[in-house]
């Protein structure tokens, strides 16, 4: 079964890679990761309950040569009537040095932490799903980015400073999507993120991001979007602390009105138990999305949200995680609801 999924994902991606099966015997040049999850849902929300297929994600990395690397990612997502296939990432990177690498293609937008650290890799994260501000199909944060990204760092400095700077198409007319087929206007989006990973504390990272774009509001007028994001994480098992905050402003291109900004944050705390219970990792997350009525881009999308998530992750083996998660949530315009999720997620790796 494991071989089937890996084979499927590599087969999907291999036309783009062009290298599958051509690796020299002594050094396989195409590597694959597969992520997947299966879920069971009981909820007071107006959603279908029962067993739910999660996403199946194939990730391929290919050394084109010593300095060129291809990264590709394809997802299969269960719908009511079919599976949808999506190219999540496809980019080629040239490594000049640790201080400077440049890539072109489709990326996870380097805003904050979770979006690039976990994203479709559900097995990697502690909880069942992402926070609402960067959820699947997020409209609050543009989760994908098509364009050019330069990145690098100063790994030999005690603070482990790093950066990502990108220019791209920004959001599409449907603001949940990236502009895969071109920009919707003549103003490119750009993003800049700086972060610090102090080498003396593995897993610790602080960062700040600025993102700017011009987009189409639901009334088809144009607005300038700016996102200011901060993150502070200790991404380890005991304890795990993840915190992100984002402030988004939308200002009309015509006129002088300055609309109030929208805010979102989450704070997640987890702790892997010790000794005989070390397979267990309880966690809790508090999160909120606040969109004022004056935000002409976000307000019509009813994004306001309050949520508390409590769960436990159980790792019966290295590459399998089982989770049981309770959520107490309130979506905009709806009553507070209780939900219970059970999930099995896994990762496959191979060459």
């Amino acid at each position: 079964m494991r071989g089937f999924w890996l084979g499927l994902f590599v087969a999907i991606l291999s036309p783009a890679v062009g290298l599958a099966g051509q690796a020299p015997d002594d050094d396989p040049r195409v590597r694959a990761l597969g992520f997947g999850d299966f879920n069971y849902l009981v909820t007071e929300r107006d959603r279908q309950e029962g067993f739910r297929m999660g996403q199946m994600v194939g990730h391929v990395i290919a050394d084109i040569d010593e300095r060129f690397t291809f990264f590709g990612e394809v997802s299969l997502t269960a719908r009511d009537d079919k599976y949808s296939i999506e190219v999540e990432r496809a980019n080629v990177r040239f490594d000049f040095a640790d201080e400077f690498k440049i890539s072109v293609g489709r990326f996870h937008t380097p805003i904050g932490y979770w979006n690039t650290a976990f994203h479709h890799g559900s097995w990697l994260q502690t909880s069942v799903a992402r926070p609402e501000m960067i959820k699947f199909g997020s409209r609050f944060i543009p989760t994908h980015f098509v364009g050019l990204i330069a990145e690098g760092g100063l790994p030999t400095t005690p603070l482990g400073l790093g950066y990502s700077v990108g220019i791209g198409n920004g959001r599409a007319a449907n603001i949940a999507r990236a502009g895969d087929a071109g920009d919707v206007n003549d103003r490119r989006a750009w993003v800049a993120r700086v972060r610090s990973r102090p080498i003396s504390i593995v897993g610790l990272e602080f960062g700040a991001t600025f993102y700017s774009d011009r987009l189409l509001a639901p009334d088809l007028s144009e607005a300038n979007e700016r996102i200011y994001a901060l993150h502070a994480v200790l991404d380890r098992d005991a304890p795990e602390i993840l915190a992100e905050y984002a402030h988004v402003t939308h200002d009309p291109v015509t006129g002088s009105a300055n609309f109030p900004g929208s805010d979102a944050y989450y704070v997640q705390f987890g702790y892997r138990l010790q000794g005989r219970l070390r397979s267990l990792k309880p966690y809790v997350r508090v999160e909120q999305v606040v969109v004022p009525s004056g935000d002409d881009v976000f307000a019509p999308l009813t994004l306001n949200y309050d949520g508390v998530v409590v769960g436990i992750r159980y790792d019966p083996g290295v590459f399998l995680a089982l989770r049981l998660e309770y959520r107490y949530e309130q979506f905009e315009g709806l009553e507070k609801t209780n939900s219970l999720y059970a999930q099995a997620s896994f990762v496959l790796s191979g060459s």
Partner: protein
Amino acid sequence: MIGAAGPMVSTVDAQTTEAVAIVVHPEVAIDDLSFDDLRSIFLAERQHWQDRSRITLLVRAAIAPERDLILTEIYGMSEDRYRQYWIAKMFRSEVASGPKIVFSTDMLRDLVTVIPGSIGFVPVSEVGSDLKVIRIDGMLPGDEGYPLN
């Protein structure tokens, strides 16, 4: 590549784990690393030597006592967390692959002398004249204060 499932708990045993020497390809133009530099290399935060050549990390397969020492002292991780770390690194497009896994000291000795830019570790008793050992914070294995004793 990340290997098969292993024990859930790291098994460093001070009684049976001897000091570990850090060895590099003979043409790597470096004789001394700070412990932080060494950690940044093993964490793949640093992936190139100063001459911009790529660093190839060689790591013993699970069960080797010296691997447990490296996981404890450099990574500060359990075996499980170590594997998750490298999968996450690849998923985040921060590396093209995990460390090359070597299954014996002899295999490591062979590879570190033929792969340009490679770095690995061996028990100090296995160090021969064919290996280039580098100092950590100015110290060699056995010196008082050497971090991988």
